[in-house]
């Protein structure tokens, strides 16, 4: 990590959703602000700025992380993934996203991107995740609209679908 100077901006080179990005930011700028207001990817939402609500969750090197508790400078050289990267194609939803739509796993949609990023990481690392695993990972997120049940159902359906796809002969 180079020595940083509070009085000026520094260049941050990192990978964002599979593409190399170079951005300029002050030391104190949050990753959430860099993504949203400097780069313009507004899919990552900010709900509390103190790490409780989980709306800002992104993946840094594959792991879910709170963008509001991460300084932009901390992602130098990292691989950052946001909700904008989940769908394989702009007109096609990922299996997890499609399950959310099918099971009404969202209402206002504000907390949803963070939840998707957590569950996406869970289902990748733990393809056999069951209800309790999903609930545990979801417990790092606050949703004020749904009462959570439909989110759990959506995640279970997506996990099931993913398992079927991976073992087509089973």
């Amino acid at each position, binding site marked *: 990590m180079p020595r940083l100077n509070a009085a000026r901006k520094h260049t941050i080179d990192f990978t964002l959703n599979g593409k190399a990005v170079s951005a300029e930011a002050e030391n*104190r700028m949050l990753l959430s602000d860099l993504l*949203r207001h400097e780069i313009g990817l507004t899919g990552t939402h900010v709900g509390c700025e*103190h790490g409780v609500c989980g709306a800002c969750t992104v993946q840094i090197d594959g792991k879910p992380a709170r963008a509001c508790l991460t300084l932009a400078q901390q992602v130098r050289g990292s691989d950052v993934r946001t909700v904008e990267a989940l769908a394989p194609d702009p007109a096609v939803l990922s299996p997890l996203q499609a399950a959310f739509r099918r099971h009404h796993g969202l209402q*206002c949609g504000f907390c949803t991107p963070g939840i998707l990023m957590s569950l996406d990481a869970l289902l990748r690392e733990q393809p056999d995740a069951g209800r309790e695993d999903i609930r545990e990972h979801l*417990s790092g997120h606050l949703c004020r609209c749904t009462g959570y049940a439909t989110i759990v159902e959506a995640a279970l359906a997506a996990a099931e679908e993913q398992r079927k796809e991976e073992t087509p002969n089973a």
Partner: protein
Amino acid sequence: MTRLEMTGALVGRTVERVEDAGLLTGRGRYIDDLPVRRDTAHMAILRSPHGHAGIRAIDTTAARALPGVFAVMTGEDVARLTRSMTVGVKANVECWPIARDRVRYVGEPVALVVAENRYVAEDALDLIDVDYETFNAVVDPEKALAADAPVLHPSLGSNLINERTFRYGNPEAALAEAAHRISIRIAYPRNSCTPIETYGVIAEYEPGEDAYDVTANFQGPFSIHAVISRALNVPGNRMRLRTPPDSGGSFGIKQGVFPYVILAAVAARVSGRPVKWIEDRLEHLTASVSATNRVTTLEAAVAADGRITALSWDQLEDCGAHLRAPEPATLYRMHGNMTGAYAIENVAIRNRVVLTNKTPTGLNRGFGGPQIYFALERLIHKIADELGLDRLDVIRRNLVPANAFPYRTATGGLLDSGDYQTALDRACAEGGLEALRQRRDAARAEGRLYGIGYAAVVEPSVSNMGYITTLLTPEERAKAGPKNGAQAVATVAIDPLGSVNVKVASVPQGQGHRTVLAQVVAERLGLAMEAVRVNTELDTARDAWSIASGNYASRFAPAVAGAAALAADRIRSKLATIAAGQLNITADRIDFRAGKLVDRDNPDNAVSFGRVAAASHWAPSTLPEGTGQTIRETVFWTPDQLQAPTAADGINSSLCHGFIFDFCGVEIDRATGQISIDRYVTMHDCGRILHPGMVDGQVRGGFAQAVGAALYEEYAYGGDGSFLTGTLADYLIPTVMETPEPLILHHETPSPFTPLGAKGVGEGNCMSTPVCIANAVADALGVEDIRLPLSPSRVSEWLYGEERPRTAPQNAAPVATGASGERMLTGSGSAEVTATRQSVWAMLLDPNTLKAIIPGAHEVRKVSDTHFRAEVTLGIGPVKGRYRADIRLSDMVEPEAVTLSGGTEGALGSGCGTGRVTLTETATGTRIDYRYEAAIGGKVASVGGRLLDGAARVVIGQFFQALARHAGGGGPPSAAAGLIQRLVALFRRRR
């Protein structure tokens, strides 16, 4: 339900939402995502750290000088360009969106900064110097009425801002004649359904036209638009208000963004550029809006069989520091249904509204329902218990009979439809009440704490815009002119290619309005849902709207969707006439099916929808005589049933009245006091269901918020007005782990008063669930005075009594957490130094010395000979904060004695204290004696008292140690060390 799932029908089916693809892929357009002009600046708000204080002076010089700052404004600057916001009652009181000479709640705006970005704007806030004179605060509504209570608004003379009494039937006689009079007193706490997206505003000002253009994630009601325009001193057409395409939840709360619309609008005018403000979470919890807290005494006249003949309500409503529009609406929203689901003919009501040093209240899901049903349904349980009757029987005996609808309540409400008995019986049977009772009995047989609770409530929806005028006397109303109705508006338009656009003034925040409207309109026009596109953004300069527009009072399904159906029907009727001419049949034989207008008796005789629909654009002269255009139909719909209050104060406050019957089983952990909801059954009659998936989504969402209100959530205040739940780590919102899955049942009795037969459904569980859980807890514990939230510590108090103080008294100065909520500290000590009295005296008056000896001081400034200001950083345990200290000297007897009094304030809390220092000549120099008392308030005071007391002693000790070191300067090191050791020893002894 099968009726709703007919082939070809769209309404009543759980279709996928059209909103979701964008929201799931990060393409939502919430307010903070919208593009803004390149010269847009950002606003930050300096807020009061005090619950109640006078503003002596505000110094903004340093903030203005900071590079990147465009404007700094105080309350006086804002007041010069605006007028006080309209207050809903007749009272000599002003209501400003920013404090002027006095702050009345923690978080009240005090100054605004507009800067190139939010980071710089917040830097500038730190440079604003406010000189406060703190006053006593009052946060308890009953104490606020005491004769010696601090008065928030001197012009008002007291804190009581409105009082009215009402009488329906003959309640006095019913109470006098009753076999039993049974009453209950409850205090309902403050909470908020706080959405995950906070407030946001983007404002512009066009000086050439003296016009404002503001985009805000406001939710309505748009009657507030009039309040904003008046405050900004412009006609309504120069206050353009728009809403973004998406909004991240509201639950009523985003009604409360309107004072910030005014502030951002003025900030844009002053700074000469667009101004954007996004509220942060700390601001939101501290200073947005919440539900009211209310103290209620409810008495019932009861016959021997449990039949209630009269209710007497005494409600004391706490609306916080200002009565902001539309308050005191929370108190009057339920006025037509103060008898709940019961047929009770005599009612007396005394309503008082009081102001306290808390954040002003506003809309919140359930709006008035949780407060009244908590009293009413707790009372029903109590009546059954006192009379030795079965609780469910008492509910049954009092329900409005199924053959009585539409039923006029004593207070003037008109219950539209229902079959409460059948709904209740079905809930008990299908929800497994008998099995639950056996479960309770089995648990109790094992010595476990288990209880069952019930709640039967009426869920009002589609508010009568005139209900708030019930608080005026009939004479005042006659003078002011009647207010009533609930205008809903929808536009259906056909474009030149024959596709359909729908526009409504509904402003959803996640409820799926676009989907349901596409279902409703597509079904009526015989189209696929995809052929209909819905826009729910609102622009007051361009769209059809009225004061009732917006998304509140659960009005979408009954009112807005109904208006869209009526607009679609108008177009349909005209299109049928056109097609009839083309098909050479009469219009009544035309069916709309699969994109075609079809001769019902000869399906081959058909014409495509697009062809008929586009005729108005391409060939208007071919339309039959008298058809008019088919391009656009706008329907304004208001129901006749919503009339102004009668001369006898009768008011039908809502158009629709759904019914809910809930029951639940809870178990309480005897060791920890933790409550777990074992089973929850909720039966709803919300009339005709338009989208079953969304209805259940509303029920589950409301239920989860109600579980939070029952078990975890409270906007807690210290006695000094400090706000104690300013983060989501303090204000506990249920996660998935704390949210059980309720069994949801439906019993549909369509409303005869709405176009689609639908009633509202969004708020019901916020009304029924808190009291249902409370009743179950009362059943488990046998405790009458159940207070929310039912935290483990509170439940433990009921189980084991209050926590006792430690048996062995601590060898320390007494620490009292006074009624004020502040922690009091006292102490004394002395030190011997080699310097003369005169030189010690001089040190105490010298800013440079003070800077050296005040622990953590960055800067000490001499304001006058007897007034100093210091900036200090103090760490108390893990909590490190920057504080601003104000020190004044008084009772000076040079060089013998001086009193230092001062206060300190920072984001984490505040402290104040006085210390008397006396200097006595000794043989070797001077003895410094001191005694002090200090009070610490705010968030830091709630963090951990013992830690804080110790830390405060250390800090005060360090000050005198440093003074002694300074005064003994030049002495041999060993002597100095000895002195410090003596001082430390002294402190230990004094503790």
